C-alpha cells in the first residue's frame, strides 16, 4: 500500500515539474542553451598550474590558463604554435662567458640557452575579485576578515570584480612559484637542474620561510629569468635542452598574477575552501565559475578573452571530415561547460545514451553495446548507436604499457647473455596480441619498441619491427614461434623451464597491485604465458604502497608499468631506460633499473639534438640496443575509443593539446530535439503495477470484511 502511495506521489511530483521530459537532469531552461555537458568521476586534486600534473586536472585548467605556446589543433605530427606569445620564442645559445653562439655550434660548448619570449599586448585576465579596487585604487578584497564573508561561499559570490592586462612579470612570478616551499610543484626538482638560479631561489625561499606565513615572491629575484620590458621576458637554462619549448606549452609555465596569490592566501577564504587550488585565475577562453568538487564544476566563457580564430590549416582528411568548416571563425563557440560528478559507469553510459552527455568513452561494461568488429576486423558501431547518429573516433595514445624486468635481479636481470636470452624468450612467449584481443577488446596495438606512433623516431613497417620477437613475413608482422623461444630458454640454461645446473624448475615472481576478482583472469593468463616455457610465475598480489616500496628497493622481478608522454619527443620515452634515472639508485623513472653504457652515451647525445637525420639514426641504434637487451617486454600502446553524438562538432583527437574545448561546437537545436525524442516517459507500466497490487489486496479486503462481520479474529 505504502509502495503504491509512493508511486502515486512520484507521478504527482513529476507531473508538477512541468518538464517536457521527466528524466532531464538539468534545468529545463538550459535545454536550448549553448552548453557542453561532460562528467568527472574523481575530483581533480589540484587546479593550481604549478602543481597540477594529471590529465583530469589539465582538462580544466588548460581552458583557463594560457602558456606562451600551444599545440596546433589539427596538424600532425604535433607542432607548437604561439598562444599568448606573439611568435615562437627566440632561442640564443651562449658559451660559458655568456657570449651568443651560432646555432650550429658544437653542443659541448653551449653553456646556456636563452629563450626570449614576447607576449602579445592587450591580453586581459578574466573578471576576478582579486583585481577589484575601490575608487582610491586600493584592493577591495585583499584584507578580508571573516565577518566580511557572510554570504560568500564561492568565488562567484563576490559582488565586485576587476581585471588587468597580462604582463611578462606574471610568467616570471609563476616560475618562482615552482620552488615556493608552500606550493609543492612536482617539477621543482627537475627544473632546478635547468633554469639558472632556480635552485638558489629555492634555498633562499626555504631559509626565509616562516611557518604559517606566506612568503612574498616579488621580494625575491631569479637570476635566470628576467623581464626585458612589459611584454618580454627571458628564461636562461643550463646547456642545451631543446625539449624546453614543450615545457613552455604546459600549464606549469602559465602566467600567475601576484594579486590572485595574495587574495587566496587569506585565512578567511581558505577556511571556506576558496583557494587558488580550486578557483584558477587566467586569461584563457573559459573561467571557472563553480567548483563544487562534490557535485559539479562549471566553466563559462571568459568575457575578457583576447580572441582567437579557428585554425585554417589542417590535414587533407580534415576538410573532408568537416573539421575546417569553421576555419577563421572566432572561438570559443560554446558558452558554458558543465562537468557533473558521475562515479559509476552504468549511470554515465545510460545518460550518454539518453543524450544528457555529449561524448563518452567506452567502458568494458558497455563495449559490446557500442562496438562491433566486422569480419575483416574493422571497427564499427552497433545499429543502436548508428541510429542515434553517434560517431566513433579512435586514436592510438602516446603511451606505452610494458612488462618490466628488474635488471638488478640475479636471475632475470643483468647484461649476461643467458639473462638476455631468458628475457627475449619471455618476450616471445607472452602473446600481447592475444592479451589485447581478450582483455582490451582490441583497443591497443602491440609495441615494437619504446616509441608509440606519433613520436619522432618511430618507424613503421618491416624496419620498425622488433626483430628479437617478430618476423616480417609476406608484408605482415608475425610473432616468432614458441619453438624459437624454447631454444632461447635452452641456450639461457633453462631447457624446458628447468635450471640446468640445479635441475630445479625456474620460478619467477610477478608483483602486482591488480588483486581484485576482475583481475584473476588476467593474472591467470600471464601465468599460462610463462608456463608455455615451463616457467612457474608466482603472482604476488600487494597493495599499492607496498608495491611502490618494493619497486624503490628493487625487491621485485617482474612487474607491469606504463608511461604517458609529457610531450611528443623521443627523449621523453628513452629517459625511462637511462641508467642514471634508475629507480633504486636514484629514485628516478627507470623502473627496470636498466643500465647500458652504450645506450646512456647515445641518449646523452640524442636528448639535446634537434630532430635531424643524425638524431633519427641514433634513435634507431637505441631502439636496437633495448630490443636486444629486452629490459622490458614492450607491451602495447593503448587505443582510445570515444563516442560523440551527432550534434558534437569539430572533434579531432589531439593527444598533446589539452585546451580543445575552445574549438568544439554543439548543435543545440538538434540536441534538444533528440533528447525529447529519446526520453518520452512510459507511464503505462505504473498503471499495471497498481492494478496488480489492487488484485493482490482485493481478496484480503474481502476477507477482512468477513472477519469484521464475524466479530472476532
Amino acid at each position, binding site marked *: 500500500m505504502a509502495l503504491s502511495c509512493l508511486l502515486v506521489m512520484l507521478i504527482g511530483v513529476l507531473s508538477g515539474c512541468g518538464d517536457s*521530459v521527466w528524466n532531464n537532469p538539468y534545468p529545463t531552461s538550459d535545454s536550448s542553451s549553448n552548453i557542453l555537458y561532460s562528467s568527472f568521476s574523481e575530483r581533480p586534486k589540484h587546479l593550481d598550474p604549478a602543481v597540477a*600534473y594529471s590529465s583530469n586536472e589539465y582538462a580544466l585548467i588548460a581552458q583557463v590558463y594560457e602558456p606562451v605556446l600551444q599545440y596546433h589543433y589539427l596538424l600532425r605530427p604535433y607542432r607548437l604554435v604561439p598562444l599568448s606569445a606573439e611568435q615562437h620564442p627566440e632561442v640564443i645559445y651562449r658559451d660559458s662567458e655568456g657570449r651568443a653562439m651560432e646555432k650550429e655550434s658544437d653542443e659541448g660548448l653551449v653553456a646556456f640557452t636563452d629563450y626570449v619570449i614576447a607576449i602579445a599586448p592587450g591580453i586581459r585576465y578574466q573578471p576576478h575579485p582579486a583585481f577589484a579596487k575601490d575608487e582610491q585604487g586600493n584592493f577591495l578584497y585583499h584584507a578580508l576578515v571573516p565577518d566580511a564573508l557572510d554570504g560568500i561561499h564561492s568565488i562567484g559570490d563576490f559582488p565586485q570584480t576587476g581585471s588587468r592586462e597580462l604582463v611578462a612579470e606574471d610568467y616570471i612570478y609563476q616560475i618562482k612559484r615552482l620552488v615556493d616551499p608552500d606550493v609543492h610543484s612536482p617539477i621543482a626538482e*627537475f627544473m632546478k637542474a635547468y633554469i639558472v638560479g632556480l635552485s638558489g631561489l629555492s634555498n633562499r625561499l626555504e631559509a626565509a620561510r616562516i611557518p604559517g606565513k606566506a612568503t612574498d615572491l616579488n621580494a625575491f629575484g631569479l637570476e635566470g629569468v628576467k623581464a626585458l620590458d612589459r611584454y618580454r621576458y627571458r628564461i636562461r637554462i643550463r646547456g642545451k635542452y631543446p625539449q624546453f619549448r614543450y615545457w613552455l606549452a604546459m600549464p606549469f609555465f602559465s602566467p600567475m598574477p601576484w594579486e590572485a596569490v595574495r587574495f587566496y592566501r587569506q585565512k578567511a577564504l581558505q577556511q571556506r*575552501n576558496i583557494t587558488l587550488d580550486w578557483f584558477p585565475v587566467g586569461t584563457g577562453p573559459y573561467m571557472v565559475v563553480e567548483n563544487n568538487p562534490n557535485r559539479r564544476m562549471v566553466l563559462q566563457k571568459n568575457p575578457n578573452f583576447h580572441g582567437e580564430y579557428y585554425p585554417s590549416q589542417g590535414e587533407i582528411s580534415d576538410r573532408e571530415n568537416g573539421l575546417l568548416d569553421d576555419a577563421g571563425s572566432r572561438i570559443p563557440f560554446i558558452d558554458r561547460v558543465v562537468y557533473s560528478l558521475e562515479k559509476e559507469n552504468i549511470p554515465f553510459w545510460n545518460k550518454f545514451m539518453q543524450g544528457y552527455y555529449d561524448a563518452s568513452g567506452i567502458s568494458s561494461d558497455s563495449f559490446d553495446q557500442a562496438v562491433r568488429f566486422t569480419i575483416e576486423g574493422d571497427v564499427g558501431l552497433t545499429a543502436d548507436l548508428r541510429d542515434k547518429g553517434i560517431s566513433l573516433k579512435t586514436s592510438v595514445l602516446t603511451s606505452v604499457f610494458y612488462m618490466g624486468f628488474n635488471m638488478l635481479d640475479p636471475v632475470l636481470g643483468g647484461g649476461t647473455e643467458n639473462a638476455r636470452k631468458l628475457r627475449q624468450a619471455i618476450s616471445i612467449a607472452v602473446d600481447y596480441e592475444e592479451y589485447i584481443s581478450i582483455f582490451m577488446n582490441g583497443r591497443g596495438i602491440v609495441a615494437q619498441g619504446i616509441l608509440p606512433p606519433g613520436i619522432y623516431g618511430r618507424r613503421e613497417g618491416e624496419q620498425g619491427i622488433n626483430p628479437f620477437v617478430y618476423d616480417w613475413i609476406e608484408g605482415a608482422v608475425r610473432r616468432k614461434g614458441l619453438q624459437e623461444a624454447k631454444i632461447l630458454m635452452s641456450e639461457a640454461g633453462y631447457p624446458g623451464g628447468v635450471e640446468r645446473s640445479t635441475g630445479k624448475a625456474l620460478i619467477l615472481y610477478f608483483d602486482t597491485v591488480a588483486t581484485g576478482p576482475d583481475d584473476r583472469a588476467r593474472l591467470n593468463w600471464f601465468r599460462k604465458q610463462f608456463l608455455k616455457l615451463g616457467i612457474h610465475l608466482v603472482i604476488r598480489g600487494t597493495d599499492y604502497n607496498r608495491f611502490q616500496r618494493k619497486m624503490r628497493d628493487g625487491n621485485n622481478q617482474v612487474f607491469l608499468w606504463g608511461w604517458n608522454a609529457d610531450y611528443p619527443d623521443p627523449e621523453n620515452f628513452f629517459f625511462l631506460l637511462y641508467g642514471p634515472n634508475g629507480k633504486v639508485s636514484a629514485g628516478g623513472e627507470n623502473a627496470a633499473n636498466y643500465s647500458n653504457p652504450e645506450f646512456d652515451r647515445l641518449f646523452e647525445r640524442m636528448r639535446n639534438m634537434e630532430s635531424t637525420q643524425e638524431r633519427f639514426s641514433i634513435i634507431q641504434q637505441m631502439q636496437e640496443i633495448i630490443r636486444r637487451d629486452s629490459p622490458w617486454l614492450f607491451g602495447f600502446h593503448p587505443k582510445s575509443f570515444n563516442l560523440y553524438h551527432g550534434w558534437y562538432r569539430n572533434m579531432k583527437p589531439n593527444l598533446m593539446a589539452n585546451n580543445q574545448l575552445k574549438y568544439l561546437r554543439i548543435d543545440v537545436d538538434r540536441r534538444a530535439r533528440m533528447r525529447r525524442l529519446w526520453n518520452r516517459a512510459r507511464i503505462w507500466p505504473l498503471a499495471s503495477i497498481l492494478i496488480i497490487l489492487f488484485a493482490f489486496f482485493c481478496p484480503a479486503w474481502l476477507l*477482512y470484511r468477513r472477519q469484521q462481520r464475524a466479530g472476532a479474529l
Partner: protein
Amino acid sequence: MTAYIIRRILYAFPLLAGVNILTFLLFFVVNTPDDMARMQLGQKHVTEQAIQKWKEQRGYQMPLWWNGQSEGTGHLTETIFYTKSAGLFLFRFGRSDSGRDIGSDIMQRMWPSLAIAVPSLVCGLLANITLAVLMVFFRSTYVEFWGVIVCVAMMSVSALFYIILGQYLVGKFLLLVPISGYDTGLNAVKFLVLPVLIGVVSGLGAGARWYRSLLLEEVEKDYVRTARAKGLSETRVLFSHVLRNALIPILTGIVAVLPILFMGSLITESFFSIPGLGSYTIDAINRQDFAIVRSMVFLGSALYILGLVMTDIAYTLVDPRIRLL
C-alpha cells in the same frame, strides 16, 4: 537523568580515544607518511626532497607515537598521533591532506546525505509497519504466507541489485527520473525519488519481517485478549493497543540510528553520484587522506555514542517504568 547523561558523556571520552587509537593504528599499519606524500604529489618526478617538504608542512615528519628527541611532555605531544588527534575532541577537524577544510566539507556534504537518509527512513518505516500490520492482521491467510515468502526473497537480494534494477527500470526503461545526479533546493526532488524508492524497497523485506515478529509477540499478550474480550474491533485492537506497545522497540531502534543518518550511504551515494558523506569517506580512503579518514571515523563514533544515549533517553519517554540513574 542529568547525572546519567553526564556520566555517559564522560564514558564517551575513553571510548572515542580508543577508536581514535585503533583508526590510527590500522591506517599507519598499511600506509606510511611517505606513501601518503607520494599519493598526494602524484606519480611523475616525485623526489625525496618534495616528499620531505610535504611531510614537514603537514606535520607528518614527526614520530608516530613517541618522540624520543623531545623533552618532558614533548615525548607525547610532539608526535603525529597527538597533533592529529587532540583537535578532534573539540570537533576541530583541520585541513585534509589535499588542503581543503574538512569541517566546511562536512557541513556541505551532510545535507545531501540527510536528503536521502531521512525520507528513506520515514517512508521505509511507514512501508515496513504497513506491511507488517497487514501480515499480522491477515495472519494464517495467503497474505501472510506470500508476504513472508516475498519478504525473505527481498532480504536475500543484495542492495546493489536493487540499485541497478531500479536504475534500469525507472531511469532507463520508464524514463521517469534522472538515473543519477544531484541538485540543490527543490530541484533535488527529482534526483531523490529513485534512491529513496530503492532504499525503501530494499529494506522492506527485513524491516517488515522484523516488525511482524514484534507485532506477533504483542498480539498474543493478555491485555490484547482482554481488549478483544471487551468487544473492540480488530482494527481498534491492532492500532490502539498492539501497535502502540510494539512501537516501543521500533522507536528506540530508530532513535539509535538517527545520528548515523548524517554519515550517509556508501553504495547509494556512489551509484547515484550524490555528494554526501558516505562517498566523502570512500574517496578519502582511496586517496589515503588520513586527515579525512580519522575525522569521519571519529565523527561516526561520536554520533553512534550519541545515538545510544538518545536510545536510553527515548526508553524513559516511551516507557514510564524505566528510570535512568
